């Protein structure tokens, strides 16, 4: 079945009819949000492409939900006929982040997957080009993961320009002015202490 004049509402109905476990909602005009179990995502994407006519894969994105120990993968699909966007969201376990490649459905998925692999460390099985992409000689935690310490990395790798030695610590400036003596056991909890 091809839906030529698919609207937000008919789209939601159609998806719910086929995928009972999907959480579907109209996020705003021209945008439908679908939350789906990981194993149903390839199925859903090929269904959306071939039956609902969402021919274009516009983007693949990722969010690090570190507190929940999960990554969220987001696929943006576009239908030229209905000028409608579907946003498909799914969660991947953060311990062993794995998904399959979509390059058999959309060749451009390969590039998005390479980027996400490099920035978040998610393995897309079947993608044979998951090598070095933008970063050169990167070792350690992928940089878009939330446990990557950006400030530490900046400090270690970027040139510390001379002329910045006059920097002051706000906490110290204020306690010096007021005469407050902050004991060591409290200092552990000063968020702002400049590390020596």
């Amino acid at each position, binding site marked *: 079945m091809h839906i030529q004049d698919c609207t937000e509402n008919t789209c939601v109905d159609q998806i719910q009819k086929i995928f009972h476990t999907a959480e579907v909602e109209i996020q705003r005009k021209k945008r439908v949000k679908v939350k789906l179990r990981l194993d149903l995502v390839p199925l859903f994407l090929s269904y959306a492409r071939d039956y609902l006519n969402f021919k274009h894969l516009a983007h693949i994105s990722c969010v690090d939900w570190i507190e929940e120990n999960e990554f969220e993968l987001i696929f943006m699909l576009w239908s030229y006929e209905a000028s409608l966007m579907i946003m498909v969201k799914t969660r991947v376990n953060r311990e062993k982040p794995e998904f399959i490649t979509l390059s058999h459905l959309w060749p451009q998925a390969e590039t998005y997957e390479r980027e996400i692999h490099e920035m978040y460390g998610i393995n897309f099985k079947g993608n044979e080009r998951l090598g070095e992409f933008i970063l050169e000689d990167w070792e350690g935690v992928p940089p878009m993961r939330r446990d990557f310490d950006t400030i530490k990395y900046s400090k270690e790798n970027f040139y510390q320009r001379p002329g910045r030695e006059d920097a002051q610590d*706000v906490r110290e*400036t204020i306690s010096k002015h007021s005469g407050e003596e902050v004991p060591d056991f409290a200092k552990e909890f000063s968020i*702002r202490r400049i590390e020596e």
Partner: protein
Amino acid sequence: MAFDIKGVLAPFSALKQGTKPPHTVRYPKEKKETAARYRGLHFNDLEECIGCGTCATICQNAAIDMIHVDGFETNSGDSGLRPRVDNGRCCWCALCVDVCPTGSLNLTKDYVYVSEDPDSFLWMPGVDNPEGKENLSFQSAEGKPLLEYERIPMHELEGTERVKSFAEVLLGYNEEEARKEAARCVGCSICTDICPVHMHIPEYINAIANGDDEAAVKIIYDNNPLGETCGKVCTRRCETVCAIGHRGEPIAIRWLKGYATSTVNNADLIEKIVNPEILPPNGHSVGIIGAGPSGLTAAYYLSLRGFNVTIYESKSHAGGMIMYGIPKYRLPLDSIDKQVEYMEKMGVKIKYNTKVGKDITLEEMKQHHEAILIGIGFEVPYELGLVGENEEGSIQAVNFLRNINSDRHVEIGDKVVVIGGGNVAIDAARVSRRLGADVTILYRRRVEDMPADWEEIEGAEDEGVHIHPQAIPLEIILDENKKVKALKYANAEMIPDPEGGRPRPKIIEGDEHIIEVTSVIGAIGQSADYNFIPEDIKNQIEIKRGRIIVNEDQQTNVPWLFASGDIANRRADAISAIADGYRAVKGIEKFILKSENK
């Protein structure tokens, strides 16, 4: 061939291009408008900025330093520092802008930066581009900030429910609420400067946010042994300067302190958690007059430093004004008892029911102690100066509150007028409501001039207290049994003070009224009773406007005599008294150890 209409009209279609913008470059050259949210060089509104340094903390490139700028001094509410950006590192992500609590830091449309020095990348927003204010582009959105501007609401009893009993009005945060509220704090420490005691506020709030309530309690007790009291009734000047308060609701610093301290529900547990370092006895002895907040604070920290401390308290309970002045719906009795019990465990000795000047003289005290701290507070109420004020039915608010807090019955009838506009007046009014009376507060100035906390004023109004501003009492009318029957007062108008002070009330002639009352409660201020101080000492120390003049160590002109609390500071609140007590500890230590070394 027919007439070629198309061929005739086609050339005219070129006319429509006349309304479209041209594709060619125009001369003289027109500058293209920069995109509305372009991320160019920083601009900082130096006057708005409070130097909290949140921008420097969040910068993921470590590109922002906080440095001294001429013309800005460290003071209450401003660190005196301003951000400087290393444009060699900045990636214009604008996290600093999004997180700026005051909204002073923004990005401009300017992106051209030219310097003769190839190493010059340091940029002082606002100093290097004072004109940037006219050219802002990327600004921190108030609608979707990275910071939480709304305070977690505090549960409290409804006004109609409150007047039925002396149950505590504020129900306190639960654990989840406290963590959420604490997580709003950016940890800038601006608040610590204005706090009289300079409590380690960002540290204990961060400990709460991290789920470590015990660490929070230990940090609070480092310089305030009455943290639980302050968590309920502090005048919290800290919240008035909170960085978040510039565009949102300040962090509920007082209630978070209340949350942390209330998680510890007995003195043994406080001892276990605080576990302070106690120095061995040093053989020196200090006497303290009055177990109010300042006396208790001094006694506690002196004990920890090895001094032998005795407090002489005229009443049967410790706490002073927080025990006998603050109504129990604001500060329950068991809370005070717990805090005092802990101090006694730490070596503070309190002689109850011992009035200096009656049960023991100051000279006798001096024989036992090397230094003496006076912390007697203001307990003697000012008289209203009205006819009939000493008769039955006319009560002084401090005496009234003391009797109520001592569980004594006070007959006030069902129509009460409270005269005054301070916290004592509000307390007396709210207590009277709880005793079932209709209550009117008469205050000589406007409501906005009332020295009481606005929350207290609001609380009183919620409970049905009627506030009558700009009313001056004239006479208390007595019945045949010399009992208070009615009060005569006049309405007043506010006239501006020619010397620039606050407007003064002036009686409107003829606008006099009489209201029937069963009691009149006076609450127009208090003073101290210095009769216990012998004349020769009184002549040496300096007493100005009822207060003893002390140096920054709380020391009077008589070196062994120190003074603290209401009798030594004009703030007259618990936290200032605690601060006095804390300073006195250092003063007394310095004095005793110095004379020892001679």
